[in-house]
């Protein structure tokens, strides 16, 4: 009897664990989906504004002696943004012109920061900072 109780108990425990695991997996999955969705929304907002706004009128960035990015560079930035968006990656805090015909995506996580820099010639670099110290810089295109 005691053995049977133990068996039932084990089965019960297993069922509870299995159920909890399924619930946890569903919960994590829902959380990940929600996070992915919020990243996607943030990327799409950045694509609409400022990137598509710039594409419609690149001249607006020809200001105060700065060189506006060309439409080709803006299209490249939009392609990169769409790639990140489709991958569900976290969105940058902002996208800005560099003043020399290039475009910079700026990411931040706590004290660390990173930037994806598209130069006026189309070269792409990824630069990582830890507490303002540059720790990594690599050409990705």
């Amino acid at each position, binding site marked *: 009897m005691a053995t049977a109780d133990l068996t039932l108990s084990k089965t019960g425990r297993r069922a509870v664990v299995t159920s909890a695991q399924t619930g946890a997996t569903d919960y994590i999955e829902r959380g990940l989906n929600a996070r992915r969705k919020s990243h996607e929304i943030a990327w799409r907002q950045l694509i609409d504004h400022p990137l598509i706004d710039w594409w419609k009128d690149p001249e607006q960035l020809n200001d105060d002696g700065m060189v506006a990015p060309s439409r080709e560079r803006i299209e490249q930035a939009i392609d990169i943004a769409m790639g990140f968006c489709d991958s569900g990656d976290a969105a940058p*805090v*902002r996208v800005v012109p560099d003043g020399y015909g290039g475009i910079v995506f700026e990411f931040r996580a706590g004290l660390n920061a990173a930037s994806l820099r598209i130069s006026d010639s189309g070269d792409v670099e990824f630069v990582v900072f830890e507490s*303002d110290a540059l720790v990594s810089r690599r050409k990705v295109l």
Partner: protein
Amino acid sequence: MSMSGDVHGQNEIEETEELCRRIPASTGWYDPERDDTSPEAFQPRTDDTGGLSLYRRKFQSPEDLAAVGSSKAGYYVAIVKVADLQRAGIHIRQDDPNDCSHVVVPELRADNRKRDEALELMQKLAGLVSEVVGPFPSASSRR
């Protein structure tokens, strides 16, 4: 860090001073909603050959600094404290002995703006912004 004034030392840059950097409002380098400044605001411009330009607030107000610029959309002005630059080990010096209002960060110039050290300095300077004021109109934006 040395803080050079004019040749006679009469306008020695004091630790308690504040310095101003103009940020064209058209660039998005300052986000007023998040009160956040992009490191790009401290990227040397083509005319920053002797160093990144900053202006001493005690000689030139942010409004006056914006007014002499040519941006169509006007300017925000980022304020950086000399004491914070000192603590971060960022050197500044007066650019022209006859113009005590203008100082430069000599390690950050148009010719070295792509180097690792320059990117790191830009990142540091953005983190040292104590306040951003404006936007203020420029001569062009008033027309």
